Structures are given as structure tokens and as C-alpha cells.
């Protein structure tokens, strides 16, 4: 945990460039699995490995851990319980793995379709600072809250995906000025801003502004090119 603290360094400007939401944009029932996402992608000289959750190394690792307790906590879940139980979303999500400066990052990506447009919800899982250990994850430090970011997904062709992240600065200004309304928490003393709307409210909000290009931060757009 301490190791993660040392490397967890963020500037306020970066924090505000993406919108952070307490709740994910997708739920187990609304998340969609799209084979076009899986594969190895490249952007700005970095590779991004995208795997369906049940095909991922993370799942294999968790399953191995699960097997130690097999039979102890099995329970039958109804469809309603599955929808309400947030971690179920990850079963219909993708595990995204990439490496920068010898640190491996692992995240969840959950896709949803709203008004014929695709959006992806990113959530952090952990970092691995020791490449010699397959799953030496260091998770969320206790003094930080893991949140979600959202990007519009455009499949330009079978080998290219464009991600347009929602502009946190624009959204903050609009909310502050009362021109956009979405449930949030704002602390002026520490410049903290967090969207606290429910997934359903978040989906309605995104649908309302999805076609407004000011909604997206062009500087944060990412084009991914398929490698395999």
C-alpha cells in the first residue's frame, strides 16, 4: 500500500480533465459485450491489452483464490439481486492492461449503448510494480476513493477505436453556472468535485448531451490502433 502511495501522484489539473463519477455508467443488465474491443491495441507508443473478464489473467488469478474457499459461500442470486450487486458488472466487462515506466496498470472497461452511441466506463483495479510477480496487485490506498471515468467510443473501422473523454472542466463550469444539472459533491476549500448521480441518472445525462461536441475534451481524445 505504501509503495502505491509513493507513486500515486496527481495534479489537480489532471483530476479536472476527466469527469469522475462515484457510480459506473453501466450495470450488469445494461453492459454490452462487443468482440470488437478485445485484442491488443496501440496508442502513443504504448500497448493496451483488452480481454473479456472471463478470458483475463485477473479472472484466472481470482478463480485460483476462489477455489481455496470453494463451497463455503455459494449462494443463488436472482436476476434482481445480480443487477443490484454492483460487482456483477465486472463479469460483463473487459480487463484492460497496459505498462508505462515499468509499472503495469489494470483497469475495468464496461461498455454501454445509449441512443445508438457507445460509451465506455473505466474503473481502476490496481497496479503491479513487480513484473516478476504475475498478479502483485496493489489496490486503492485507503485515503483515496476509486471512481469512474467515461468516454464515447467510436469504432472508426475494424482496426481503429476513438475514445473521447467527457471534459471535466467544461462539465464543472456548466454545473457551477447552473446550465447543467447533475447530482454532485463539490468542496471549494480543496477543489474536490465528484459526480454522485445514480447510474440511471448518469445515463440520462449522457444521452442528453451526447451530441454536444463541447461535452468532450478534444485534448484527451485517444485513438487506438489494433495490433492483434
Amino acid at each position: 500500500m505504501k509503495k502505491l502511495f509513493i507513486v500515486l501522484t496527481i495534479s489537480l489539473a489532471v483530476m479536472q480533465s476527466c469527469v469522475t463519477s462515484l457510480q459506473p455508467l453501466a450495470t450488469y443488465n445494461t453492459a454490452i459485450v462487443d468482440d470488437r474491443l478485445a485484442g491488443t491495441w496501440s496508442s502513443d507508443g504504448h500497448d493496451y491489452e483488452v480481454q473479456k473478464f472471463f478470458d483475463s489473467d485477473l479472472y484466472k488469478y481470482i478463480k485460483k483464490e476462489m477455489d481455496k474457499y470453494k463451497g463455503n459461500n455459494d449462494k443463488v442470486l436472482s436476476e434482481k439481486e445480480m443487477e443490484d450487486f454492483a460487482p456483477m458488472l465486472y463479469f460483463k466487462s473487459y480487463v484492460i492492461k497496459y505498462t508505462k515506466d515499468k509499472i503495469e496498470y489494470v483497469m475495468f472497461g464496461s461498455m454501454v449503448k445509449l441512443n445508438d452511441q457507445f460509451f465506455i466506463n473505466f474503473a481502476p483495479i490496481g497496479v503491479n510494480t513487480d513484473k516478476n510477480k504475475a498478479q502483485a496487485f496493489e489496490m486503492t490506498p485507503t485515503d483515496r476513493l476509486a471512481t469512474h471515468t467515461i468516454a464515447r467510443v467510436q469504432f472508426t473501422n475494424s482496426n481503429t477505436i476513438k475514445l473521447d473523454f467527457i471534459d471535466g472542466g467544461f462539465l464543472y463550469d456548466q454545473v457551477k453556472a447552473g446550465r447543467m444539472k447533475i447530482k454532485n459533491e463539490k468542496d471549494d476549500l480543496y477543489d474536490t468535485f465528484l459526480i454522485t448521480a445514480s447510474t440511471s441518472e448518469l445515463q440520462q445525462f449522457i444521452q442528453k448531451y451526447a451530441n454536444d461536441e463541447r461535452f468532450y475534451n478534444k485534448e484527451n481524445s485517444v485513438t487506438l490502433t489494433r495490433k492483434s
Partner: protein
Amino acid sequence: MKKVSIILAFTFLVIFFSSCLRTLHPIFTIKDIVYEPKLIGTWKTGNQGTKGLVIITNLAADNSIELPEKISTIRQKGYLISYQDKDGNATEQYIAFLARIGKHLYFDYFPAEKKDSKTIDEFFTSHFVKMHTSYRVDISKDGDFELSQLDESYVTKLINEKKIRISHEKDANGSIVITASTDELQQYIIKYGDEHGAYRSEKTVFQKIIHDL
């Protein structure tokens, strides 16, 4: 009905569980701040022995720390608290303010970062919102002091038993996130500040070994 082993889901809950009370908002307003110069110095703590040290400096004395704009205007009333390992490396750093709330003094801790430190990927870190953690501060006559951290499980139990109304949300993993305003937090502290159970059982005793940095 589907048969699903939910151990996997529980794994996620365990991963994100934390027992110290984290709040989105600080527990203090500017008018509550108390500056105590005696806290400046190098301290050893009871649970670290002499292996780890804690260095407390005036927040204005270190220009390398990234400060929110409004915090920057009051930095002379704040502290930078650096926890060091046995090799003298800073393992954790916090922007801290001492505030009087009700009968007691409290520290509000907020994670500190250096302006030029960008070791980890910015995209990944942008998914984390820094939270406040709070401690009751009991300063003894000889100048040593003791920190008692507010316990998240105590608040969670009160919420679940519907014994308290305090603003909160449940995050995607089902954990309670306290979103109460500073005013609400202060009401909570005033009401439960003397309750033994409102604090985590382990206390940290700070003994000064070097004065005035």
C-alpha cells in the same frame, strides 16, 4: 434463477474495504483552525518505535507540495506531516489542519503530493479522488500527543441501524462513502466525540525527539 458463486464478488468488496473513516469533505472550516507551534518537530510514534519517524513542518515551509488554491492562502496555519520508514524515505505525506470541534482538537488529514512528481500514469490516477481522514488529538502536558482515528465501521453501523442521518452514498462496490458537509461532520463529531467506540482501537502516541524544524 442463476447459480452464481459470489465469492468472486466478495473479493472485490474486501479489496476496497477500509476501516478508517474517509470523508469527501473536510471536518473544518477556516474559522475552526487552531495553529499549535508545539507540534512542529520530529516525532517517534509508539507503534513504530524508533524505526519510523514522523516529521511535522509548517505547510508554508515546503513549496514543493501541490496545494489547492484556497488551501494555499491559509498554508501558514497548516502542517505537512511526513511519515518516514526506517531508511528515512517518506512513505506517506499529508496536508493537515488542526481544528477545535466541540471540546476536542482534531487533525484533518488530506493526501499531499509533490508538484513535480509524476511517476504514475496520469490516466490511471485520474480515477482516484482524495479523501479526508480525521483524528482526535490529545496533547499531554509534557508536549507529547496522541492520535485517535475516527472509525468508519462505527458510522456505518449507525447508518445501517438507522440511528443516524448523515449524508452518504454507496459506491459501485456497495461500500458507504460519507458525503456529509463539513457542518454535518462537525455535528457528528460533537455528538460522538466522547464515544470510545467512535474511534479505532489502536491509538498512536507521538513523542518528540527533535524540536523546531
